[in-house]
């Protein structure tokens, strides 16, 4: 990689955001986290450390259901942290699973494991005295949470494709390599959480890729194996689309600048699809990854965090300029994109047989929440399987779990355990399996409305409407999120509900099945009754007037219920 001069004309002028100060002063992400850990007076982190722990994979949260109650009790909010593990490609061994199962049971307030849309697991409700223990436990099993949040490249996703096992294996190795390559180089994580050796004074640590101020904003990367688009490439800053020849991986089409977050009422923010920069052969992968990251590092907006993501940098400096920077920095030229096609995003629930004659069972986990419910001990079920399973587990970007690599003779036993614990439920509709929600209340501090807790009820209503209009075999990509920040990827849904306030949602329509179109605002601030009334109308009309096999998202655009968003910056708020 060649060194690059920074073009000052492309840098946003102005007073830097406060996060820039705190990153710069953090002593490469150390801050005073260690002092805070010893503070007996509060369960939370103070000042800058509240932000800095994100770079170590944690968010400070509190139980919002009882926040007001505790205020009256003269108690601080029930501070705890959520940890998001770094699991490139979402693959986890049974041994690792049993370790996280135990920790979640014994040391988290909710006793659950959450499989998330970032294709990894999260612990929710870990109290401060258990945080170091948590990192050390994970470390004992080869897991860390470095840079799964904060202004860095986060956990790298990879399509869960157990069938084409060799291709998947190759892609997965690249996901891991990219993750490692883009990780912070600071030893802060080991030092603070694992009691690792302190970096000796005088010895200079460097962040050659991320820089000492890290990135302007969060950065998300995927490796995707078409025709599956389970990772939702357009929600990510950097995507490597696997191109295979004769079943062997030869290189990637590189898609840059997707992202879904926006702010209510701020038209300078919008969801945007990624741009296809073209094809690069395998050997250039890491250089290209680093070049995209450093270009965003140098030209991303550090003045206004709401316009700091790669998608805005692309629109501000121009796609061509951005691409030229990447080529120059990586020392490669993109060739024309190789053809590929996405045909869907959902996981195939149930058993499939791979080309290596191994069997794979995909379990539908509603909203990714593994918990022992009174009638459905889901979490124990997975643990029971982990005790006998000889393959591995794969968490999907759709929050589901694949029991991968099962030999023919072990299938029956595993299915028996899964059924006994409610992990296989033949009554789940396709609609339910293709719906998604972010975590939201009660733990997420950003949530404005319910999402995960509300999803099951809402899907029930949608199922009812489909039945009413005799569309039972159909499904609609349906997503609910508690705020407009993007976690539940509602901005790639055919119907997306975005929380506005308690019980109130903005309704977006017009995404497509493959996740290649951004939906558009239909109506604002609707409550459940109003939403259902509108959907009743729309689904009824779709049933009556649709073309053959026409999907709901395509239909609403064709008949003009909403206009199509082609270029976000132009069309989304129009």
């Amino acid at each position, binding site marked *: 990689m060649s060194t690059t001069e920074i073009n000052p004309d492309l840098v946003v002028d102005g007073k830097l955001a406060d996060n820039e100060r705190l990153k710069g002063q953090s002593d490469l992400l150390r801050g005073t986290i260690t002092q805070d850990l010893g503070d*007996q007076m509060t369960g939370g982190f103070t000042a800058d450390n509240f932000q800095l722990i994100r770079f170590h994979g944690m968010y400070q949260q509190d139980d919002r259901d009882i926040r007001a109650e505790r*205020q009256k*009790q*003269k*108690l601080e909010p*029930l501070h705890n942290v959520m940890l998001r593990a770094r699991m490139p490609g979402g693959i986890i061994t049974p041994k690792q699973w049993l370790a996280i199962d135990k920790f979640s049971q014994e040391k988290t307030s909710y006793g659950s494991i959450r499989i998330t849309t970032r294709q990894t697991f999260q612990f929710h409700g870990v109290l401060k005295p258990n945080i170091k223990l948590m990192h050390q436990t994970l470390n004992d099993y080869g897991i860390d949470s470095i840079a799964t949040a904060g202004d860095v490249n986060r956990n790298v996703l990879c399509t869960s494709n157990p069938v084409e096992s060799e291709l998947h294996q190759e892609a997965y190795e690249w996901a891991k390599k990219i993750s490692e390559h883009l990780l912070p180089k600071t030893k802060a994580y080991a030092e603070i959480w694992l009691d690792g050796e302190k970096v000796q004074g005088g010895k200079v640590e460097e962040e050659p890729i991320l820089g000492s101020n890290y990135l302007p904003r969060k950065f998300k990367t995927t490796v995707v194996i078409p025709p599956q688009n389970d990772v939702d490439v357009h929600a990510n800053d950097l995507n490597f689309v696997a191109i295979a020849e004769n079943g062997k991986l030869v290189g990637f089409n590189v898609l840059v600048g997707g992202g879904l977050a926006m702010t209510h009422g701020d038209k300078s923010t919008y969801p945007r699809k990624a741009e296809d920069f073209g094809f690069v052969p395998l050997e250039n992968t890491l250089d290209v990854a680093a070049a995209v990251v450093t270009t965003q590092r140098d030209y991303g907006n550090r003045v206004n965090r709401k316009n700091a993501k790669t998608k805005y940098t692309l629109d501000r400096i121009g796609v061509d300029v951005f691409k030229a920077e990447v080529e120059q920095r990586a020392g490669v030229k993109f060739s024309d994109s190789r053809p590929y096609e996405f045909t869907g995003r959902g996981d195939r629930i149930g058993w499939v047989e791979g080309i290596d004659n191994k069997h794979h069972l995909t379990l539908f986990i509603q909203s990714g929440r593994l918990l022992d419910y009174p009638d459905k001990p889901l979490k124990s079920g997975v643990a029971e399987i982990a005790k006998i399973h000889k393959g591995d587990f794969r968490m999907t970007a759709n929050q589901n779990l694949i029991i991968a690599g099962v030999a023919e003779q072990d299938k029956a036993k595993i299915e028996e355990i899964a059924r006994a614990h409610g992990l296989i439920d033949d009554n789940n509709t396709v609609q339910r399996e293709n719906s998604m929600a972010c975590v939201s209340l009660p733990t997420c501090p950003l949530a404005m409305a319910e999402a995960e807790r509300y999803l099951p009820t809402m899907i029930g209503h949608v199922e009812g409407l489909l039945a009413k209009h005799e569309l039972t075999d159909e499904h609609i990509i349906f997503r609910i999120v508690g705020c407009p920040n993007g976690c539940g990827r509602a901005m790639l849904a055919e119907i997306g509900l975005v929380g506005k306030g308690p019980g109130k949602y903005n309704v977006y329509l017009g995404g497509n099945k493959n996740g290649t179109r951004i939906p558009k605002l239909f109506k604002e601030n609707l409550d459940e009754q109003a939403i259902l009334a509108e959907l009743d109308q729309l689904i009824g009309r779709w049933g009556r007037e649709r073309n053959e096999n026409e999907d709901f998202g395509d239909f609403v655009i064709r008949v003009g219920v909403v206009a199509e968003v082609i270029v976000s910056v132009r069309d989304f708020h129009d």
Partner: protein
Amino acid sequence: MGEVSVMLPKQRNLSQTMLDADQLASLQQTIGSYSPLQLAWASGYLAAKSEQSSVAVLPAAQAAVSSTLTILYVSQTGNAKGVAQQLAQSAEAAGITVNLKNVADYKAKSLKSETHLLIVASTNGEGEAPDDGLEFHEFLFSKKAPKLPNLKYSVLALGDSSYEFFCQTGKDFDERLKALGATQVSARVDCDVDYDSDAKAWSTQIVETLKEELTSSADALAPVVNLPVSNSADSSYNKQNPYAAEFLVSQKITGRESAKDVRHIEIDLGESGLTYQPGDALGVWFENDQVLVDELLQLLAFSGDEQVTFSKDDSEQTLAISEALVSVFEITQTAPSFVDFWAKTSGSAELLTLAEDKNALREFAANHQLVDILKLAPAQVTPQELIDTLRKMTPRLYSIASSQAEVDEEVHLTVGLVSYERDGKTRLGGASGYLAQRLEEGAKVKVFVEHNDNFRLPESDDTPVIMIGPGTGVAPFRAFMQEREARDAGGDNWMFFGDQTFTQDFLYQVEWQNYLKSGLLTKMNVAFSRDQAEKIYVQDRLKEQAKEVFAWLERGAHLYVCGDANRMAKDVHNTLLEIIAEQGGLSTEQAEDYLKTLRVSKRYQKDVY
């Protein structure tokens, strides 16, 4: 009542020679808030006082020296002091010259020149003398104690019969004075928690007995003022005449997962004129739970309407038993003597065995309410028989958790609900159940202020303080912090708090955080016993901070301990001894002396229960 204003010019004249400007200002400030009634009483009090001092200064001048009655009180929470003040009042009214003193202010060596001595002594939980009496107690039992063949004396002992060493301090004084050759003028009386009528009877009898002997001079020195002595100098409301205050707030301040229900309570003292200082306690008269009373009545097959007779406030009263059980008699705290009585009445083998073993009996009594015992060993008694064996209700004292500098006419308490399961029923503490559950916001609650001069912030605002208050022992320290904040006190403040869990039981957490943030609170260390495998308590935190604790003590810090007497206060005490010995390079005995010196000089104060 005499015209009081005539006193003032006289005093002013006097002041030209006798009082400096500060003294005069302070006198005027003090009496400025007095009501006419109080001024009248004070004038008599001062007159008597001036006579006493002249007597003391000139012992040989007149025969009256031999006719002075010295009354000493050994008080922890103020009860003994109150009794002694009333006694002094009636003795003076009878024309006796009285020298009333807190034993801590009394020179033990003067004992040998006394002729008449009365002691009102309370006892700490485990039988030791209250802090103020330690030195006197030690002197009496030392070789330095003089023979006292010319001394006539009597002792009134206050205590709580649910403790093993009931009235032990009074007993000690009595036996020791006897051993030194003194003569009892009247037998010692041991009073239980409902001491009022026993104390009054003893006082009346003593004054009657000594009147002849001690009033040789015809002209009584003190004016006869027949006013009740109020515990609180600035209000006519007191224990016998409580104020019906508005119950403003009862807020649970433990989290929803807590094993405990601790309430922050706010009460409005309104126009009562009741005032208090940080360190004082609020006395609360409560009512028993009607549901519990009904359960009792049912067990005994009483209708509840049966009339029972008992003496109260010096008169015979008759009430329906149901009413008497709600508002007059103690049914949630059991006296060991009741268990004894019930053992005999019911003939229950289990209870009879228990009654043999004093410790077991006490423990059993502490863990069983009246209703539990009646269920365990059914027996039939008449309504009057039952009433005759019960103790009268006594008000509960709660350390005040606020400063008037911060909350004006309000008074705040921190009340832990006493609650346990017995045979599938939830039993609640009498007063805590009343305050935490039965009393509704806006209702009236009968209260009075119980002053406690043995738990006071240092006189100087610059003096550092170390506060150790786990659990509801946190209460007075909240008051301390409010007071020091209002006074803009510059002294350092260090708080030690502990409870079961950090997330659920950190009482007033947000307030402590804010005090730390503002800098008013210099340091705070907390110990949560159930947050880790090994139990950690406040004394462990003290130990961790040994060096600094000792450094604070060396630079004059005052030490305060509030909360559980049985274990915590002892463990803390022993830890302090260890710290002092280790950090000061002292022997155990020297460390004990060090702490004792702190206690005697009021730098180590305890409010434990």
